[in-house]
């Protein structure tokens, strides 16, 4: 490998994972995937309804995180960020897992009739769903699903390969090319992710609509992505990697992003809620009404406090953003919150009277997270953990928060 040596006096890190470490983590992930998929298979045989709903939550959880990665990689290119260069390869490797979604989407396509009310026979006699049938039909759902996943895959693969090519040559041409891809990419991402969230989650309540829903989905995904990124960086650090390349200054910035995105999520979520509260119209309020029945009513306060107030207050001081233990705790915390947020959006459709956690929820989560995790981890095999050819790498290694 040409890049195992270090050019920089600012970093003493090794940028290539040791094969033994790589294999150990790969084996753990493969074992988790095996157990997860076997359990999920059993779940499919035992409880078809629960399987499809659990799978949808887990799929939305994973894909929203990879979309956060796609968004962030493009934002780094568009803004010409130097602070993020040493974490960008990890972002890119997360982003590169998107094509796995093309295969993992298949069970959702097969679950349409179980999950979505608009596909039921009763929809034919529902005048509102009749009018929406041109959009909300099984063929359209599947085609749109594959189109958006293919679009994201094209951008993910393209941006990743540009960055990898730069590792070898260090040419500025790849930075320019990435910028050119990112500008339309962000636009397409927001439009297509909105469409995907309308299809996959919002259409669970087919009478209801919210133009804010796409941003809600992406904001949650972006928070969870930042949490995953911090967790991955801290994991590599505890294994002895990148402790110079991603130092306290970089963690401070990642912490700022985690904080800012938490606020953004709250802003978006509240914007949707307040307009519906104020309008007080039955056809709009129904979405919240359905999610406040029985023990579901505990979720909204949980989201306000757990997904916003606690991280907002705790991450506000500079000292907690520079405290790696605190950041590690909140990266896990925000991931749990993001899962519960999606769970609360999806599950009341199945469990109409109250919260009913099921072991298949866990099986689906383990299966999908470990599968995406394996694809992610395969991208770190014998490849540098940072974009070693990036012209801004030196600047990033010496980065300092004012």
């Amino acid at each position, binding site marked *: 490998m040409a890049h195992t040596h270090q050019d920089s006096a600012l970093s003493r890190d090794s940028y290539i994972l040791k094969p033994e470490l790589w294999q150990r983590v790969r084996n753990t992930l493969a074992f988790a995937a095996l157990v997860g998929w076997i359990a999920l298979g059993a779940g499919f045989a035992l409880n078809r309804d629960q399987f499809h709903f659990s799978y949808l939550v887990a799929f939305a959880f994973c894909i929203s995180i990879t979309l956060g990665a796609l968004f962030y990689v493009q934002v780094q290119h568009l803004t010409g960020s130097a602070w993020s260069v040493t974490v960008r390869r990890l972002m890119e490797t997360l982003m590169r897992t998107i094509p796995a979604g093309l295969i993992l989407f298949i069970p959702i396509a097969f679950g349409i009739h179980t999950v979505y009310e608009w596909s039921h026979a009763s929809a034919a006699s529902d005048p509102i769903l009749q009018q929406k049938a041109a959009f909300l039909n099984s063929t359209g759902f599947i085609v749109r699903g594959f189109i958006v996943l293919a679009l994201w895959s094209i951008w993910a693969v393209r941006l990743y390969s540009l960055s990898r090519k730069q590792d070898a040559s260090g040419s500025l041409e790849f930075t320019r090319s990435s910028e050119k891809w990112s500008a339309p990419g962000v636009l397409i991402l927001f439009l297509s992710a909105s469409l995907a969230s309308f299809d996959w989650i919002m259409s669970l309540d087919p009478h209801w609509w919210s133009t804010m829903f796409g941003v809600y989905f992406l904001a949650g995904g972006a928070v969870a992505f930042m949490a995953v990124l911090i967790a991955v960086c801290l994991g590599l650090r505890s294994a002895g990697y990148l402790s110079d390349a991603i130092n306290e200054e970089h963690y401070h910035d990642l912490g700022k992003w985690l904080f800012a995105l938490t606020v953004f999520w709250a802003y978006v979520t509240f914007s949707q*809620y307040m307009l519906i*509260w104020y309008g*007080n119209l039955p056809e709009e309020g129904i979405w919240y009404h359905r999610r406040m029945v029985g023990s579901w009513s505990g979720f909204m306060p949980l989201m306000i406090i757990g997904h916003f107030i606690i991280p907002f207050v705790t991450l506000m001081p500079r000292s907690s953003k520079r405290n790696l233990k605190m950041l590690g705790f909140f990266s896990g915390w925000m991931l749990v919150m993001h899962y519960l947020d999606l769970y609360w959006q999806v599950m009341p459709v199945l469990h109409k009277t109250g919260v009913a956690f099921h072991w298949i929820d866990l099986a689906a989560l383990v299966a999908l997270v470990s599968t995406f995790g394996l694809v992610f981890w395969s991208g770190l095999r014998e490849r540098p953990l940072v974009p070693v050819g990036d012209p801004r790498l030196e600047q990033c290694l010496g980065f300092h928060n004012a």
Partner: protein
Amino acid sequence: MADLLDKLPLPAFLKPADTGGHYGVIGDFDTPEALLRAIRTARTAGYTKFEAYTPFPIHGIDDAMGEPRSPLGRIVVVCALLGLSGAVLLQWWTGAVDYPIIIAGKPLFAIEPSIPIIFELGVLLSAFGTVFGMLALNKLPTYYHPAFNFSKWAGASNDRFLLAIEAIDPKFNPDEIKVLMDSLGSRCTELVEA
């Protein structure tokens, strides 16, 4: 002479200052690195009252000078909390106490529709706290500063890096400081008038 002046009922600015009429000693360095080295050496030598003047912010200078974190964040938090609670009081008092009128069947006061105002007032007072707090902490506007009397002062806004050890420093001794600064690479070291 000084004793005589002390006894006269003169305004304070006509009396000789306790500092002996000097602001301090200013040295003029070529590079940020030389300045940082000079600051560290001066601190090691036991000086506590010093100030650096540079044309641009220098990473690590706060650490080198041993500057504590700015209290601005705490000022802003207080302003934000004032804004938040003020907005709650404003909306509750106007809507539910002073002029209660039911609109579209809504409660006279509820937290949900009040949040945008709570948010905006919190942001507004935070912004005021940030800007005016920053100005106050920086003692701005200041129209005159004794450091302007340094003959190479213009360099501080161009390409020179100045270090002043002020006369209020308990260890202040102009001759010793001049030797120290010259040995650290100062191109021009002067005792500057107050």
